[in-house]
Structure formats: structure tokens, C-alpha cells
């Protein structure tokens, strides 16, 4: 058993050696706290491409694609249609475990970075990211120009939750890079995965991953957990608060 594992490793090893570059990255803040006055934030991701002895000498310029994915959730996209003179939701598609936040950043337009074939395989660009739908009992992604899929991306983009920016990554030196990750005000709470993919001359040559989390702290956290775990107490407190406020107002505004 051990020997087969070792053999498998030995077979795999030359493959990973061929990826001669190493990516070293870091996010400016691994824990974004949502406080009462939170109204959006921008994180900075920076890193460098480390070459080693096996790096081909002619490889001087690199391309980078950064993918940020927020916590996954099920979503439903509905389409309205005119029936009996009124507009009602008739058709819908369910999107399963899709990122609630999705951002794709690159240093130049995706079509210059790599071939459409590799872009599809590496999920480069909003058109190529896998968004699983439930289509009549089947689970699959559909063609990029599907009406529901494009409407879904358009609506998420309008809210600042999905974005694509092919000029967000800047190379400070040929190997040192940085990019901003804008987080909108209504950002979903949870763990965010960041994937950095390295390309050279149109070929995918390696990737690395990092993550950050967005958390509620203090009072926000307390209110949210109480509401979830002690619904009855929370309801009673809210009801009592309503009565108190009403009573106080009638005392304050009493005419005499």
C-alpha cells in the first residue's frame, strides 16, 4: 500500500516540478469585522511570483486572474410574464450553491490572457464560472447566453455582488502584483475563498489559494445569535421594547 502511494507520488512529482513558479500571496485583512458603522470596505491582495532554477529563461511576463468567492447559497431567479393583463412570476430556475459574492480580476482582458478553451476549463470570466442550475431534475450549468443565467449575473452585478474587472490587477514589478477587492455594504457574512491563477504565454502554469472571512462582532453578533437561538426571548424583548417605546412617547408628549 505504502509502496503504491510512493510510486504514485513519484509519478506526480515531475508534473508539479514543471510548474516552476511559486505564487506567494496575502490579503490585507483576513478578518473583516462588520460593526454598526460598516458601509463597505476594500481589501487589498498582494503577492509575488517566485521563479526558481527550472523557470524557462524566456518567461518574463505573467498574467494573473484572481477569483473571489463568497459563501455559497441557493437562489431562485424568476421571470415575469403577462397573463390576463397582469405581470406575474411564471417561470423560475433554481441556482444551487452558487457564490453569494463573486469577483474576477485580471491584469488585462481575459481573451488576451488565454484561449477560450482554457478559460472555460479554468472558469475565467463570469461567462465561464460554473453556476449549477436545477433544470427539470437535472443538475447542470447552461450556455452563457441563457436568459436566466445572464439575468442572474446582471442582477447580482447591479447590486455590486458580482463583478468582473480586467484591469484591477496591477504588476508593480514584472513579478510583484496587487489588486483591490471591493466589498459592498450589503456584503454576505461568511468565509470568502480567493483563488489566484497564473498564466504565461496563454498557458495555465499554476494557482494558489487564500481566504478571508467577514464576521459580525459585538452587538450585531449578539442580536443575530439571540434571534436565531432564543426566538421566544427575542420576541418577548422586542414586544416589551415596543410597549416601552409607546409608553415613553405618551409620557413625553403628554400635554399637561
Amino acid at each position, binding site marked *: 500500500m505504502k509502496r503504491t502511494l510512493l510510486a504514485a507520488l513519484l509519478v506526480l512529482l515531475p508534473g508539479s516540478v514543471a510548474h516552476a513558479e511559486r505564487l506567494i500571496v496575502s490579503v490585507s485583512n483576513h478578518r473583516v469585522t*462588520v*460593526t*454598526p*458603522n*460598516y*458601509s463597505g470596505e476594500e481589501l487589498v491582495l498582494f503577492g509575488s511570483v517566485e521563479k526558481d532554477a527550472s523557470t524557462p529563461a524566456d518567461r518574463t511576463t505573467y498574467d494573473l486572474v484572481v477569483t473571489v468567492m463568497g*459563501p*455559497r*447559497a*441557493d*437562489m*431562485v*431567479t*424568476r*421571470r*415575469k410574464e*403577462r397573463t390576463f393583463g*397582469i*405581470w*406575474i*412570476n411564471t417561470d423560475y430556475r433554481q441556482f444551487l*450553491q452558487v457564490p*453569494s459574492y463573486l469577483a474576477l480580476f485580471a491584469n488585462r482582458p481575459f481573451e488576451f490572457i488565454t484561449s477560450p478553451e482554457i478559460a472555460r476549463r479554468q472558469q475565467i470570466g463570469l461567462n465561464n464560472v460554473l453556476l449549477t442550475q436545477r433544470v427539470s431534475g437535472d443538475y447542470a450549468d447552461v450556455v452563457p447566453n441563457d436568459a*436566466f443565467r445572464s*439575468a*442572474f449575473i*446582471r*442582477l*447580482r452585478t447591479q447590486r455590486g455582488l458580482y463583478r468582473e474587472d480586467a484591469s484591477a490587477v496591477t504588476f508593480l514589478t514584472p513579478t510583484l502584483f496587487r489588486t483591490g477587492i471591493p466589498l459592498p*455594504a*450589503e456584503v*454576505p*457574512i*461568511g*468565509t470568502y475563498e480567493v483563488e489566484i491563477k497564473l498564466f504565461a504565454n496563454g498557458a495555465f502554469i499554476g494557482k494558489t489559494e487564500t481566504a478571508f472571512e467577514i464576521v*459580525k462582532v459585538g452587538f*450585531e*453578533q449578539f*442580536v*443575530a445569535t439571540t*434571534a*436565531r437561538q432564543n*426566538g*421566544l426571548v*427575542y*420576541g*418577548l*424583548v*422586542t*414586544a416589551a*421594547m*415596543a*410597549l416601552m*417605546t*409607546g*409608553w*415613553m*412617547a*405618551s409620557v413625553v*408628549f403628554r400635554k399637561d
Partner: protein
Amino acid sequence: MQLYLPIADLPVNVFLVLAMGAAVGFVSGMFGIGGGFLMTPLLIFIGITPAVAVASVASHIAASSFSGALAYWRRRAIDPALAGVLLCGGVTGTALGVWTFTQLRALGQLDLMIALSYVVLLTTVGSLMFSEGLRALMRTRRGTVPPRRTHNWIHGLPLKMRFKRSKIYLSVIPIVIVGIVIGFIGAVMGIGGGFILVPIMIYLLRVPTSTVIGTSMVLTLVTMLFATMLHAVTNHLVDAVLALILMVGGVTGAQFGARAGQKIRGEQLRLLLGLLILSVGVRFAIELVIRPEDLFTIRELGVSG
């Protein structure tokens, strides 16, 4: 000043929400209605999800109707016996309504049902009130005496009870039924129901105007407290921070509204309220009829992980 709402999960401008609460509170104090049918659409408009909006508005209505009810109580404008009988029906109706709500939701198309019932209910009640107010206004202008209130079939029902403060002698059957209907409508549509209750009490039950508003506020208060509890226990969607801001704005506005309401004559008040309800109903109707700006909508089914 921005403030992050813990349950709605988004930041809002405190002063904007305060102003919205105050404006709706003013209207609710003036007409003796909860104002839920105004507040919920406003909250949805600033980006709060409908579920959170409906749940949080319930506690806001409870607060403003409590402060209103206290003011009416001091002026002896509440009929405790009438309120008690109404509540028997109201609580039953609310429970029935919540059950129906769950059933409708399972069937889908709940949004459409809510929108359609808003249109039907608001335009009917609104136009009835408006035309009645107009007629009353014309009568006073012409100087003619309004026709004497005649007894209708409702006054022939058994189980009669004397309501001292309202000075009426009425069967409890129609009052309990009215309570059930209001509680039911309120739970399904996420509104207090005061704007339907007040005209029903005036025109159908012949309750004098002096005790109508105060008594209807008691019913609104209890059903909305009940609704707050139900929403908090079952859906965990009541945003206490949002509710508090709305309440503070709401109760303040309600006090000024109540004072303004006393300065306006009854018929004009009804005319204005009719116009307001009618316009909200028409707005919902327009939304259903005209082609929406975007045919697609997204609804999140809960974040996991």
C-alpha cells in the same frame, strides 16, 4: 449616519429610517391606523427583504398603536368591552391567517396573492371611503341634515350586549366575526388592518366615531404583538434594531398626527384617508399591469457555509 442592521444584514441611514417612521407615524396617529400598508412597501423600497420588513413592521405598529391607545384611553375614547369582544375574534383570526400564510407559501405565488389582495382591498376600501367622505362634505356644505342612522339587519341578531362607553346595544356575533376577519387579513397581508376595521365599525356596527379609533388601536396593538412573537419564534426575521429606529420615529410622528387629526373635521379626515388608501391600492395595481422594468428577480434561499 449609517447603521448596520444585524438581521437585515445591510447598513441603512438612521435619519432616513427615522424620517420614514415619523412620516408613517404621523399618518397613523392622524387616522388611527397602524400604517403597515405604507411602512412595509417603503422598507422594501430601501432594500430590506420583504420577509424582514413585514416581521419588523409588526413591532413598529405595536409601539405606535400602544402610544396612541394610551392617549385615547386618557381621553376615555376606548370602549374596553367592545375591544375585549373584538380581541376574541382577532386572536383566532390571526392564528388562522398565519396557518393560511404557510399553506399559500407552500403553493408558491404568495407574492401575487398578496399584491392582488392589496389591490382589491385597498381600492375597494379607499374608493368607498373617498366617495362617502365626498358625499358627507357636500351635505355639510349644502347645510342639509344627514339622514338618521337606521338600524340594519345586524341589529336584529341575538346575543346582544350593552357597550356603555360607545352607547350601543349590539349582538356580539358580528363583532367577533369582524375581529376574525381583521386578524386573518392582517396575518396574511402583513398589515394591522386598522384602515379596514375603522370603516367597518362605523358603517356596519354603527359604533360612534368618538370610540372607534381608540378601540381599533387596541385590536391592532394586540394582534401586532402576537404577530411579532410569531415572526420571532418561527422565522427569526424580526430586526430589533430596525424596529427600534422605526418605533422612535413612529411614536413621535403619531403624537403630532393625533393632534393634527383632532383639528380636521371627521368628513375631511375620511376623505383624506380614503384618498391615501386608494392611491396605495392604485399604485399596486399599476405595478401589476405595466411591464416591469426588469422581468427577472432573484430570491436567496438562505446562505449556508
